[in-house]
């Protein structure tokens, strides 16, 4: 039976595009920090050229990201309340601590790296890894604790956000390597060994990300009524062009084919694939934040 419901209750979005951008930037920051520690924390010498630029980018992104929280907040001049009145059951309160400690640790880690102090660089790099994972993982908890919305109330959120953060971070590092080597190095020759190493990492991360995002949607699709409805929204409804088209096919499947097909692998292909991945993950943040709230609750 066709049914039409008319309401006098307004439907208001609590989170919007500014929150999606915030999630995207913290993800990129966490991803580039972890790439930076591959050489200086874990001793993978191949990734040494990305150590310094990785920590600089991670710090800058994490200084920029909270600005979007202020833009989103109704009363940004009260942001100090976040540090004075904490609530242990609120992930945003966890964020108040993480968003303070993580950039400070980034700066200390970067300082010792630029000073050439290998031992302390390693120490602060290793301290930074759980911080980087938490600073992005907690954003997943923000959504999963907002239990009103079926798409969000899932323990998949934090791990999905972490993996997609690494996907976008590695893609960004590939782009940065290409741009730096092409434009700012003397020979203009791209470090192909580095690109291929990152490319291999990106391949497996995209596969993991596809697995997580599709299994999340599959469980929602066959789940209870609200879950089914929001899964239908993403798979065939108003968000399908964004979710299926941009996020999944353009942002994950096509780049995966591009970087895992040996005959066509080249610097431009890696560059284009990385850009597509970055666009795809940005779309993923928007799909999650805006799509999750798209369906009115009442």
């Amino acid at each position, binding site marked *: 039976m066709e049914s039409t419901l008319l309401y006098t209750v307004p439907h208001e979005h609590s989170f919007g595009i500014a929150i999606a951008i915030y999630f995207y930037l913290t993800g990129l920051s966490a991803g580039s920090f972890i790439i930076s520690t591959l050489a200086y924390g874990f001793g993978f010498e191949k990734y040494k050229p990305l150590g310094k630029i990785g920590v600089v980018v991670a710090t800058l992104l994490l200084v920029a990201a909270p600005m979007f929280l202020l833009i989103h907040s109704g009363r940004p001049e009260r942001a100090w309340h976040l540090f004075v009145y904490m609530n242990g059951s609120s992930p945003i309160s966890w964020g108040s601590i993480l968003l303070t400690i993580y950039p400070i640790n980034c700066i200390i880690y970067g300082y010792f790296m630029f000073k050439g102090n290998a031992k302390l660089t390693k120490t602060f790099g290793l301290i930074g890894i759980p911080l980087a994972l938490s600073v992005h993982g907690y954003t997943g908890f923000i959504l999963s*604790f907002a239990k009103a919305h079926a798409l969000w109330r899932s323990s998949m959120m934090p791990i999905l956000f972490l993996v997609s953060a690494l996907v976008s971070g590695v893609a960004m590092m590939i782009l940065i390597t290409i741009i730096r080597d092409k434009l700012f190095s003397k020979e203009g020759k791209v470090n192909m060994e580095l690109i291929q190493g990152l490319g291999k990492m990106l391949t497996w991360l995209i596969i993991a990300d596809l697995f997580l995002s599709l299994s999340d949607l599959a469980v929602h699709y066959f789940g209870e009524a609200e879950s089914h409805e929001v899964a239908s929204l993403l798979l065939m409804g108003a968000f399908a062009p964004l979710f299926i088209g941009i996020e999944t096919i353009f942002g994950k499947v096509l780049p995966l084919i591009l970087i895992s097909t040996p005959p066509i692998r080249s610097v431009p292909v890696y560059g284009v694939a990385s850009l597509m991945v970055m666009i795809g993950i940005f779309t993923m943040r928007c799909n999650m934040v805006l799509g999750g709230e798209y369906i009115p609750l*009442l």
Partner: protein
Amino acid sequence: MRNHYIPMLCNQCKRPACTSVCPVEATYSLDNGIVYIDPHRCIGCGYCMAACPYAMRFLNPHRNVAEKCDWCWPRVRDGQGPPNCVANCPGGAMVFGDINDPSSKITRIIASESVTVVKPESGNGPTVYYIGLDDEAARLVETEGGH
């Protein structure tokens, strides 16, 4: 065509999702169970709005802080009678009272009538009880969400 009327009030839940996610503890349950918002502490982040399964919260466009129905708490506190919606209901269809007081009218009604709440599965422990809530309407509210 059928019309259903479901007055939607804030449920003043027993285990409210909105208060547990507030990062500045600007919203909390009073001793009497009413969920209250301190407008001077709220930073307008919208997290409580995202957590409420009943979409009862909104951002006041002038003060930029979260607001919701508080069962007219200032009026009730000052002894000026029950909440306005209860006081003004011409049919006397709404009853307000203390469900912890076994002799109150509301406790007797809940004990003797077949009452139900909206979205009990949310786990929030809503405390707005409906007598004879149309099953179909309640189900539509829960599953069809505004189409």
